[in-house]
């Protein structure tokens, strides 16, 4: 058991932190990400890839700290894990080089985050397929040239690579509260080639669950970065804001609130780190799901507490669009529900826990 970062890991963390501190909003970060190799995290070595869930955690945490609105989790982690698990190096390689962008379309209206509740259908059509259905909340679809969509092929859930400009694909993009791009997508009689199938018809659901766990773990790290900054900012603010002739941070009711925020941040750090370390050990699917879902529940709880109280302790300033603390709050609030909220993941944790071994941590 070892909690220390390797020199390489510390280097990645520091270079992402530097990037995040200097990043300009509105500028496409993808060329820099590609150049520095961050798009290849988790990819096989023969594609120039390196690292895995631990490096992903370090990158995502720093992106969270800097509030960088980059589609790192949706593309590199979520789509990247699907393509890696399915062995589609022909698609993964352009992703790692920054030449091609992907979005994952798995949620559906009314499915309440559940990747297994799929109404979209695919039927065979000669050597190819025809796709019909509607997908909700597709992250970062506006910049993607390929949509990875889940659909029912007979009784199975299968995954397909859909060109974003194919006939019958109609995206309805909208700006989410945190400034990220999100789309609802309709697929109407979209004709796909034989090579559109990612994996085979029997492993779509398993690949999707695996990628979901990796993406959830990464989102937890991003949320951790955000809430840590929110705590630091709040502590600094209450030390300099004077009322009744004293800094408001000298009031015990506020001190206790910030101590509670600190405890929540530390539990969140443990939950996110634990998930990344368990995923790094390539555990059985139920262990993996249990770790990722536990982290998401903890992050949701901690994040809501830290976020709400950071705004409260900033007072009127916290309500102002001009102050950065509110932007962190919006992203954190959106993250709480991305890829499943606390209720969904608590239920997923409980079912994954049903057949668990007795020892709490994996051996």
């Amino acid at each position: 058991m070892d909690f220390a970062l390797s020199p390489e890991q510390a280097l990645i963390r520091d270079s992402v932190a530097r990037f995040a501190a200097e990043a300009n909003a509105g500028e496409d970060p993808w060329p820099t990400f590609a150049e520095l190799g961050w798009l290849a995290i988790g990819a096989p070595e023969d594609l120039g890839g390196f690292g895995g869930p631990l490096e992903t955690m370090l990158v995502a945490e720093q992106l969270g700290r800097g509030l960088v609105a980059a589609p790192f989790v949706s593309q590199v982690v979520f789509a990247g894990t699907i393509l890696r698990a399915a062995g589609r190096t022909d698609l993964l390689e352009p992703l790692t080089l920054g030449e091609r962008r992907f979005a994952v379309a798995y949620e559906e209206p009314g499915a309440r985050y559940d990747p297994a509740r799929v109404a979209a259908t695919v039927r065979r059509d000669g050597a190819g397929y025809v796709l019909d259905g509607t997908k909700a909340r597709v992250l970062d679809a506006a910049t993607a040239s390929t949509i990875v969509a889940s659909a029912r092929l007979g009784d199975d859930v299968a995954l397909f690579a859909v060109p974003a400009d194919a006939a019958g694909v109609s995206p309805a993009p909208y700006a989410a509260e945190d400034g990220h791009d999100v789309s609802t997508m309709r697929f109407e009689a979209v004709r796909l080639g034989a090579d559109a199938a990612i994996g085979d018809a029997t492993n779509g659901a398993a690949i999707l669950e695996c990628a979901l766990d990796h993406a959830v773990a990464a989102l937890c790290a991003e949320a951790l970065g955000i809430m840590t900054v929110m705590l630091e900012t709040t502590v600094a603010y209450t030390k300099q804001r004077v009322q009744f002739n004293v800094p408001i941070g000298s009031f015990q009711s506020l001190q206790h609130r910030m101590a509670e925020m600190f405890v929540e941040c530390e539990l969140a750090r443990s939950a996110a780190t634990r998930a990344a370390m368990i995923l790094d050990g390539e555990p059985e699917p139920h262990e993996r799901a249990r770790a990722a879902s536990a982290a998401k529940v903890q992050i949701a709880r901690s994040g809501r507490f830290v976020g709400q109280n950071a705004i409260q302790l900033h007072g009127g300033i916290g309500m102002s669009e001009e102050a950065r603390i509110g932007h962190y709050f919006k992203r954190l609030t959106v993250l709480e529900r991305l890829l499943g909220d606390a209720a969904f993941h608590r239920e997923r944790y409980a079912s994954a826990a049903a057949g668990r071994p007795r020892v709490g941590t994996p051996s």
Partner: protein
Amino acid sequence: MNLAYTDEERAFREEVRAFVAERLPDDIRRKVRDGEEALVKDDYYRWHRELHAKGWVAPGWPRAYGGTGWTPVQRHIFAEESAYGWAPRLLPFGLQMVGPVIITFGNDAQRERHLPPIASGEEFWCQGYSEPGSGSDLASLQTRAERHGDAYVINGTKTWITAAQWADWMFVLARTDPTVPKHAGISFILCDMRTPGITVRPIVTIDGGAEINEVHFENVEVPVENRIGEEGDGWKCATFLLEFERTGTAGIPYCRQQAQAVRDLLREERIDDPFIAERLAEIEIRLEALAFTELRVLAAEAAGNRPGPESSILKITGTEIQQQLSELALDALGPYAEHKAMARYLNLRKTSIYAGSNEIQKNIIAKRILKL
């Protein structure tokens, strides 16, 4: 970063599990598991003797004084497997509290006199900190130790003293100099409980238990050589000990025991309520995050840092989880809440009060970590 246990650690886990299964007396295991009957001194003593005979009684001590030489991970494994096997938690006052203080601040004569009987279990200890007028504001304590030649004469009252009725010794915080600022005038003194002038009076708690006492000192003469460290250095010993105490009071293995007990209860009583199941899952998730936080603290300790203010996180969250689990058992049983669930619920209200109330822990975090 790597979470895997080594082969040696896995073998060690098996060894501990087998030892607890084989050597823990059945009647003690039953008492701990069922929670219906309080453990008595002889129960603690019998398990203490087993651990001592095996050389496992003092994991936190240096090897030279009879410690195990275990790594932090081994100590973690030992605590987990002891809990899973329903072993009782040994009383902390000798092994985890005064022991490390004597090792760190005592002299050779004090180490030779006191460490062996603490390790063997031949002498039980209790903790003389709180007073009727000094709870959270511990440094305001009024118990006086006046120097008369080679002895201190102690007068005052200590309260909430767990196991004082069984104890052979008490470590006492007493004021040796009332003329200096309150933190500076306190000394740490070891007191034989058979010394004339000591009266122990039991305090019955809201759960009907009799585990705590008030201890009255009237002209109790204690040799000066029983003082640990210099006169006036008592506060240093007191806070050193409190930080160790807080890591222990997280009671993570105990939380795991209790979570298992709630699961057993739900099964035995056939309680199939999704709201109860959800609350249990939520508590277990928080417990996993807490257990991992303890591993992080242990890893920092292995790297040479002694427990610092971070142990306040463990104390706050661990005691909250213990209380939440007892509350859940009560709610799960609903109108049929039996005496044992109610008694445990009532008893565990103490956890957020003792060892520095959780409000005091928040003061510590605010002042020492957040620098507010």
